């Protein structure tokens, strides 16, 4: 029975992905970059769309939601997964609306009055069956995948607009996007990069090695020296793990220090963040916001006796409030933090925010 076979294969794939997510991340985050996670999630959702049994858009959304909930629960700190689920849900809504002949765009601007009167009716409207829906949805997901492929390049392309010759640029830790961004600028311009090492995981070291390999003048500093060095810096360019709905960041530990120092010296702080990092989450959701990993890096297990006398914590993320951020550079251009809410309403459907 090929149908059952397919289904078993699908569940196996999902389980493997979930297990991977759960185990992923020994230190700063997953072994792969978030871009890769986003692509994998989308590819898996495409597989679900093509292989699961559904007859109308409502069923499909229900399946995606169910799997999406499990995926986000597996590793709450990995917001990209949830974001991609929301994007796919939005695609389904749009395709359904197109098949029905009405434009989903019109519904976007629902007034408060309309919201109040419409109630939960919209869900029932997805029950109509359209034969070409499946192909259309898959087509749209493929487009999304293509978009994801190009994000880093799209961001890097804007580098020359922001980095000028002989500037001193500070960054913190290691971000693949920032790395690509700086490398792209280095093809045309000469500038100096200062990398904060980002203890205890010291991803900054790797970043510095990669940058200096391409011939960029690079200096590594300790995290404690951030404030002291900041007066010489023209621009701070950082990556982030998540862009929150209020325009704040959830970024690697130490970013808040950099942002505060930059604010004090009125140095512009630029965040390179692809659109898939945009999350409808707000910073007050305490329990999923923090991520504490094994304290091994802070105080090694080999220390012995002292470990039974102290509590050691090793948080991974910092919250950076939106006031400290000057500009976001995403794959679709530059935006101010105050504009993030708008992007979110464009990317995700308001009804999906809570999975």
């Amino acid at each position, binding site marked *: 029975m090929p149908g059952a076979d397919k289904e078993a294969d699908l569940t196996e794939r999902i389980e493997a992905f979930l297990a991977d997510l*759960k185990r992923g991340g020994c230190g700063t985050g997953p*072994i792969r970059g978030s871009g890769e996670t986003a692509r994998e999630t989308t590819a898996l959702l495409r597989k679900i769309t093509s292989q699961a049994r559904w007859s109308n858009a409502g069923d499909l959304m229900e399946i995606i939601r169910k799997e999406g909930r499990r995926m986000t*629960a597996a590793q709450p700190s990995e917001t990209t997964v949830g974001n991609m689920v929301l994007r796919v849900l939005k695609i389904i809504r749009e395709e359904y609306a197109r098949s029905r002949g009405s434009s989903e765009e019109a519904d976007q601007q629902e007034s408060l009055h309309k919201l109040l009167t419409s109630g939960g009716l919209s869900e029932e409207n997805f029950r109509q069956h359209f034969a070409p829906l499946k192909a259309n949805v898959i087509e749209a997901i493929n487009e999304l995948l293509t978009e994801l492929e190009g994000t880093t390049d799209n961001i890097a392309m804007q580098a020359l607009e922001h980095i000028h010759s002989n500037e001193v640029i500070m960054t913190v830790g290691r971000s693949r996007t920032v790395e690509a961004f700086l490398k792209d600028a280095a093809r045309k311009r000469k500038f100096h990069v200062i990398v904060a090492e980002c203890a205890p*995981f010291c991803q900054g070291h790797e970043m510095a090695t990669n940058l200096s390999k391409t011939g960029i003048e690079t200096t590594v500093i300790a995290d404690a020296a951030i404030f002291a060095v900041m007066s010489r810096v023209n621009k701070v360019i950082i990556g982030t793990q998540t862009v929150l709905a209020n325009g704040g960041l959830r970024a690697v530990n130490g970013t808040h220090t950099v942002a505060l120092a930059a604010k004090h010296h009125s140095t512009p702080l630029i965040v390179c963040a692809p659109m898939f990092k945009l999350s409808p989450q707000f910073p007050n959701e305490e329990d999923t916001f*923090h991520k504490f990993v094994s304290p091994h890096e802070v105080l090694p297990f080999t220390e012995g006796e002292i470990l*039974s006398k102290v509590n050691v914590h090793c948080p991974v993320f910092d919250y950076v409030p939106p006031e400290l951020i000057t500009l976001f550079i995403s794959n679709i251009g530059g935006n101010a933090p105050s504009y993030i809410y708008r992007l979110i309403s464009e990317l995700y459907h308001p009804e999906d925010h809570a999975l």
Partner: protein
Amino acid sequence: MSSRGGKQKKGNVASEQEEEEQPLQAVLVADSFNRRFFPISKDQPRALLPLGNVAMIDYTLEFLTSTGVQETFVFCCWMSNKIKDHLLKSKWCRPTSPNVVHIITSDLYRSLGDVLRDVDAKTLVRNDFILVYGDVVSNIDVSQALQEHRHRRKVDKNISVMTMVFKESSPGHKSRCEEDDVIVAMDSKSKRVLHYQKTQGLKKLQFPMNIFQHGSDEFEVRHDLLDCHISICSPQVAELFTDNFDYQTRNDFVRGILVNEEILGNQIHLYVTQDGYGARVSNLQMYDSVSSDMVRRWVYPVTPEANFTDQRGQGCTHSRHNVYRGAGVSLGHGSQMEENVLIGRDTSIGANCHISNSVIGNNCTIGDNVVLDRGYIWNNVDISSNVEIHQSVVCDGAVVKEAVRLNKQCVLAYNVEIGPNLSLPEGTVVSMHHPEEEEEDDDDEFLSDDQEVGHSKDKTRQKAFNPAEVGPEGKGYIWKPSVDDTEDEELAQCLWGLVLNPDPESDSESEASEESQDRSRSVSPEIDDVNAFQLEVLGTLQRGLEENIVCDNLVLEINSLKYAYNITLKEVMQILTRVVLEYPFQLQGTQLTTLQYTGLLLPLLKKWSPVFKNYIKRAQDHLDCLSAVEELFLEQDTHQTAMVKVLMKMYQLEILEEAAILKWFSTGTTTDRSRQLRKNKGLQKFIQWLEEAEDESSEEGE
């Protein structure tokens, strides 16, 4: 640390490639084969005891699955039905599980050795496999160790049979179990284990010199290793267990391999990891420290909130100071959860409670003004108001009534009721099982099935509870060792490990005796081998004298002793000489005059001369014997004058040759005292006489 991440990834990829040819297998032994957790493990097998509200076996399976094991054989014996039920319900037996779990049960397993012999008999493993116990908590990535192991096997043609995984952690670490403390000598280049010894209770450690004499020129003697009880074994290990039916534990095996290394040519290697966490819950002390390490996130990504068992409703949230809350937890007004607290689902806690460093299970009810510090409360426990619990374990279904105080290291086993108004002294163990039922049951009891427990329960019903012990409304018996049954006494003490006895002396004693019952041969005999051999030789000679045994038989007996204690021929001779020469002291005490001494000794020498002749044959033997004589008389300097007589007698009895004596006299002077000895008048006269005799003829002596 992304560099580490990269390495890990690489390791995974590499092992996956090999796995494509052969799936990685694991043998999980879900039985401890001892009674350390009695009386708790009387009702529930150890592998199913909850740690951080998850059964211990789940941690082990999670560890195996995350390292890429695709097929696991779970061996259960004690209460195998419960383990089977648990596993069949868990996510490991779902069809989508990447790790196929086979459950093999038998009541006949009595040790790890039996399990591995069964593995061999059924030819379950085809390739290298991972061997763990069902109570190991770990997040170590063994793929690196596995690669090293496979590489060694490829290069060295299957010489290496086993790689043991150790974690670096300095002495004094609370997660180091004192019982499992080991000292390891290893070759630093090849990571080969040269010597492996448990250190517990030993004040002196001895390393045989020959281990350092060959191989590479760099050695490490390490005491900073924590045994994770994870070993990567080749299929040969199972075969070796079959061949050597006396191997019971891994310890036996390791020692056996090391001792017989030259004969069998097998080697054991070591893998030391710095990151990752691995420990075995071998007693309640370890249970305490592993639980707290778990809550403090040392085992990340295996953390309470990760819900890796994928059970519905098991999920919990993690907030500041490592406070974990399950679904439906209610917390009364003014209650504080200070730090490192894990609370299971649907548990309600009253007002003004003070909870720190504790784990509370599911569906518990806790009253007002309760103080919990390092308390491990399992599921469905009912705790009334004004209760204080310090570093104790309260098992499923227990009821703690008003104003009860549990002092350190108390254990309330399943369904016990305590109180009200009672303070349990430190180290009290209360159980629904009457301690006397131990005596009624036969020795095989701990291996039998659950039926027997049920039936013994009925028996206990008839006995009344003692209100002085468990309170006026209490139910349960103090699990106390019956006086004549030393084994139980040991075990009751050992439930919490060794920390109970701060006195190091009694420590080592109890350990040693415990050892001798638990793992019959695991105390290293090597250190005492020589002494034991000496005692045995003395006993043999004594018996020989009393029962007038022929010298040939004495030789036979000493020879067999030599093999039993693994003593070299040279040592045999030295010890024999020593024993014989000291024999008069043994008989009459050390206050003998020289005259009495020689009077007693000379007939003995004559009697046992065939024994000596049997051992002293080559020229070197003569010299060894002489140096033993010299050594003894250097110690007993009041009897130095007797030495000449002894030598004379030995010469006359043709035990010693004159050439040897002369050679000894001329060469062996190394220390001042021995030079002094040689200046002894009698001795010089004797030597002179010998020299003259040599000139004349050799028949003179007879």
